[in-house]
């Protein structure tokens, strides 16, 4: 848990640094944010690896582990964009999103048991959940880009990155996340559900919520293709898609169903 908290504080410090950068636009501050984020990412990685060794299974078996892994994947997604010109303000908010996930993770029980419950004892756990996390991390990158799109006005807000560039980042991220989500969350999930429950699809709340996420991004892609939709509309859909993603992650906690593991 010490490593988790170390990553937590690193992301918090980097989030505060991001706030300072937003006001000052100092490249020195951005560098510090980068270093602290990287430190947080390294510690987050170590925390996940240590937990995997300690428990003997991938760190994706409860909400605490899932959200910690999600925070890690979000930072990874943003790190790919860190050196991209024009996206300085976007990437600096990587630790902020990761920190939000770490806060949520800290609200759930963190006990690690070496023994998985019978339902989770399958290699499909790793395939299904890790691909879903990576897809959702790509959606998170699109979410921040789209949120900035919505915040800027039509002519382009002076202090925000170029809207067209942000729109492109959102589109590319969804272009990575959507196939991953289809393969990991839906396809691998259906194969595993058939083996475990005798049916590939049960209209369980988490399954249905995942389908809604998929439908929202499918709508996004169609609207974007028609060019009838404005950036505001597609950005709105991208934001909605990510909010639904978070609902899907946390929803089984209060909606129950076959996916309510902890």
């Amino acid at each position, binding site marked *: 848990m010490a490593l988790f908290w170390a990553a937590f504080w690193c992301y918090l410090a980097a989030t505060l640094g991001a706030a300072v950068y937003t006001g000052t636009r100092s490249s020195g501050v951005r560098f510090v944010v980068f270093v602290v984020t990287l430190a947080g990412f390294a510690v987050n990685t170590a925390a996940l690896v240590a937990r995997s060794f300690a428990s003997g299974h991938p760190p994706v078996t409860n909400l605490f582990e899932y959200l910690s892994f999600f925070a890690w994947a979000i930072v990874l997604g943003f790190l790919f964009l860190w050196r991209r010109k024009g996206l300085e303000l976007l990437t600096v908010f990587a630790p902020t999103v990761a920190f939000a996930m770490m806060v949520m993770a800290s609200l759930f029980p963190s006990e690690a048991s070496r023994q998985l419950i019978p*339902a989770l004892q399958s290699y499909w756990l790793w395939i299904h959940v890790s691909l879903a996390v990576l897809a959702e991390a790509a959606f998170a990158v699109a979410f921040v880009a789209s949120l900035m799109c919505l915040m800027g006005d039509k002519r382009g807000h002076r202090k925000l990155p170029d809207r067209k560039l942000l729109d492109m980042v959102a589109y590319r991220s969804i272009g990575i996340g959507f196939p991953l989500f289809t393969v990991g969350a839906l396809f691998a999930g259906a194969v595993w559900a058939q083996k475990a429950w*005798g049916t590939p699809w049960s209209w369980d709340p988490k399954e249905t919520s995942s389908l809604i996420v998929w439908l929202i991004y499918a709508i996004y892609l169609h609207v974007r293709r028609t060019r009838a939709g404005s950036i505001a509309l597609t950005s709105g859909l991208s934001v909605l898609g990510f909010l639904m993603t978070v609902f899907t992650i946390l929803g089984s906690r209060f909606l129950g169903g076959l996916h309510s593991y902890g």
Partner: protein
Amino acid sequence: MTLWFLLAAVVLAAAFLKGFRKWLSSMSGAVWILVALAAMSLLGVMIGQNLPPEAYTERYGDALGGIVYRVGLGDIFTSWYFLGLAAVLAVSLLACSAGRLWKLARVGGHGRLSRAGSLLLHVALVVILAGGVVTAVFGFRYPAPIYLWEGQEMVVTEGGFTVRVDAAGTEYSSEGVVSEYYSDVTVIENGEEVRSQRIEVNHPLVHNGVGLYQHEMLPSATSVREVLFGIVMVTEEGDSPVTSVAVPFHEEYTLPGTDVSLEVLEFLADFTYDIQTRTASLASLRHRNPAVKVRVSEAGEFVADRWVFADTQAHRDDSNLPCRVFLFDYLPDFDKGITRFELSRQPGTPLLFIGFAAMSLGLMLTFWTRGTRKGDPLDES
């Protein structure tokens, strides 16, 4: 006059169908179908599915709860309007795919792979829907879980065989945590034992296309490992303070410092009593109203047999007994567990998986290859 009216109706219907067909194959048509599907799915998640009618009236009030139940929102995913919308989606996908195929054949060169991927994923979606239809028409799934215990048999009519549970139990890790639920079963066909297999979670038995899937394991409904009683000794000087004792099932236990002994004769996880036949039995296999039948003896002499319930004193007015007995708790017996199975045949599943695989490949080709999807920024207009 009637003829003119009919002719006008046919022309109008044809015009409507032509417009509808155009709308179905259009991008905006697809968007609206997806929006409607997402909205209905969200409604399904928020409302809660397959609950009893009382649950909806309790949650939404008499009027709204009644409407929710009557219009089928409580089982929205099998409602005619949801299935109808899925059918409209299938038609739209086919129309769209035909257009894409035509474009792919006509337009060559740059982005062919991406276009092919896009076509593949749209066709794959139809295959997935077809898989769902095949399962809905030719498959089945038992609406309620099946509970069996050691020695019991069940006829699986749909598969033409009988399944017998030879053993059912729970395995624990060294930490004492449940590590596996298992059921050793034998399949009997035409009076002959044809195969024996251990079924575990994630490791089903599939025979003649029918799958038997291990779910949870309930503790025995008729036996326990140990019962924790609260005891108050009744003496001439008055009642003693409450002490707790753990009494193993079917073993005589002498209360410390006394010549009074207790023996747990029976256990019922959900006690019910038939007044006419004067017999106690199980109302269900769930531990809803646990009760134990305890024999009280004193100095080796039988005193009485009494049913003791959780939170209630067994024999409030029974002054003959040397002690009062309360049921505090008990250790459930998982060794003689009740295994819970799901039984289903899903003949559309292979089609569904082929569809999913094709859709995944289609998406990768569409988004991860160099092609037409350059991701151009949108126009501001």
